[in-house]
């Protein structure tokens, strides 16, 4: 277990290190003066532009040696300083992002957990039952192949605009002030539901298909046949097979995280949900590079933390990793 964790932590630290280096290097690798590049493409008031030029020249520290710039970047990072947003001047990038992160998490975490649970259960249930299996296979594959934003667009259009049941923009009614009251919470849930549903459905298909394929493999293995020959009830064999089939699914969850996050970003764009996705879109449209860089770091840190949790879950679920019998 020590070895397992040691390896993982080395990988996470090097990933973080690499990500920060990329974040630092990319603006400097692009041709031209990065500060002028940044400012020439935004239209801001003259006094703001002057203040920003001074700020960015200092922030980039282009007059000092490259290695010092790099170290300064790290120091600023550990002070939580990711620069100042251009299009939301004078707000700090960190503050802007922290405002958006709760919405993204509120969307992502329930969608991931619920779809993982429901998809696996349904996949295991559908495997080897003729009718369900025959429909699950094509439907599941088509669902995982659906671009997240397209499902979002369809839901927003059909349930939101045509049927008028759900709102299609924002996180709560525009004429409401955030407060801890029932109407406000109801409004939050109403706005949250459609983006959640589109994230949930796409992932559900993937987990159901994955579990179906895995559990069929497990049901064909020796221990299942042995149990069968002993006369064990079908539900018991299924239970054992399910547990074994769940392990590769958890590894799959870790591998899929990046794709899921990307999916949630574009889903937020469709529903104008005020999370990181919408923030990135406006940052791109306003050429606010500091904001993009900040979002990049936040996403990477988030995915690394999630990966770490999945590793812990894996150790809890699979006793072999605990006993040091399996490395990865």
């Amino acid at each position, binding site marked *: 277990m020590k070895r397992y964790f040691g390896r993982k932590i080395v990988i996470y630290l090097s990933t973080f290190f690499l990500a920060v280096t990329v*974040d630092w290097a990319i603006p400097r690798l692009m041709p031209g003066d990065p500060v002028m590049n940044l400012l020439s493409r935004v239209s801001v008031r003259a006094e703001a532009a002057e203040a920003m030029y001074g700020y960015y020249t200092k922030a980039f520290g282009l007059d000092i040696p490259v290695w010092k710039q790099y170290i300064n970047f790290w120091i600023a990072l550990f002070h939580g300083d990711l620069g100042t947003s251009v299009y939301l001047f004078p707000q700090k990038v960190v503050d802007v992002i922290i405002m958006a992160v709760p919405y993204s998490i509120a969307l992502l975490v329930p969608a991931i957990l619920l779809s993982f649970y429901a998809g696996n259960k349904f996949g295991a249930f559908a495997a080897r039952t003729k009718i369900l299996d025959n429909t699950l*296979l094509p439907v599941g594959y088509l669902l995982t*192949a659906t671009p997240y934003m*397209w499902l979002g667009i369809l839901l927003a*259009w059909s349930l939101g605009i045509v049927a008028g049941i759900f709102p299609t923009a924002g996180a709560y009614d525009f004429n409401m002030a955030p407060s801890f009251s029932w109407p406000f919470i109801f409004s939050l849930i109403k706005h949250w539901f459609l983006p959640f549903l589109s994230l949930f459905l796409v992932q559900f298909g993937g987990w159901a298909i994955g579990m179906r394929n895995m559990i069929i493999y497990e049901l064909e293995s020796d221990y299942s046949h042995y149990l069968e020959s002993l006369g064990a009830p079908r539900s018991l064999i299924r239970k054992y097979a399910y547990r074994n089939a769940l392990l590769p699914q958890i590894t799959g969850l870790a591998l899929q995280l*990046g794709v899921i996050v990307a999916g949630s970003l574009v889903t937020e764009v469709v529903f104008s949900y005020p999370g990181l996705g919408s923030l990135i879109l406006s940052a791109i449209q306003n050429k606010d590079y500091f904001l993009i860089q900040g979002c990049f770091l936040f*996403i990477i840190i988030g995915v690394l933390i999630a990966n770490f949790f999945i590793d812990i879950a894996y150790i809890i679920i699979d006793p072999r990793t605990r006993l040091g019998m399996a490395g990865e």
Partner: protein
Amino acid sequence: MIDKNNKKEKEPEKEDKIPQKKPKKINEFVYFASRNTKLKVGLSVVLFFLLVAIIGPFFTDYKWNAYIGPISQPPSSEYWLGTTTFGQDVYTQFVEGLRASFIVGIIGGGIATIIGIIIGFTAGYRGGMVDEVLNIITNIVLVIPTFALLLIIAAYLKVRGILMESVFIGFTAWPWAARAIRAQTFSLRSREFVDLARISGMKPYKIIFTEIAPNMMSYLLMTFILQFGGAILIATTLDFIGLGPTNAISLGLMMNYAVLWGALEFGNWWWFVPPGLAIMLIVGSLYIMNVGLDEVFNPKLREM
């Protein structure tokens, strides 16, 4: 004398055997492939869209970004898929976008598969220190959310093209392929025929390409198909968030414009339904085709 005689006697036998054996094996795959519904359905859908992507643009007189007519027209005999809120022809955009998707799939998926093959074979065959180092690199790229990486690279590029997008996708999508191919190579490495080749003094790269790779051909093909579909999906996501090609149209960009310019509010479904539907059908069919191929190549899975 005897040798010659023997040879003469054996030769016809050999000639008989070879032509018999070879077609039999190919026939077997063709036979099972022709009976496999999943493969047939998946392949036909993909080929249909490929055909539309190739010959579709010849049936339109417009450029994808030209303002050619009345705005927000529903599909008609004049404008096959209607027009956008700016009066652009949706059909033209759709077929051009399909082309872009297939280009991204082939180049992006191809590069990712090739890198995966090189790293997977090297790590799996060499083992030891090389394996360890490559493994760490693979794991690092595996953990990084690829999309975030593409996001920051694309954001800083002033001019973006479809080719460049495909190359970047290829260079970030390879890790799982490398990992899977490494595992397969690892298990094949210790087989007798590989040992035999090694003892007879074959060069490592020759062993890999003549002894190991042919045994994994079906696996490599399926890896490419999955990477193909994955590349299309990543490109769509990237395009939709506004980092797509700056000088061309793609299916993701179509959906981006549709959402930004009020297609939902005006009910212009012909603008946003076709691109997403095409992607879903292409990628979904690729996945289903893959299951079919698996059954064709793997006798254990055939009877299901």
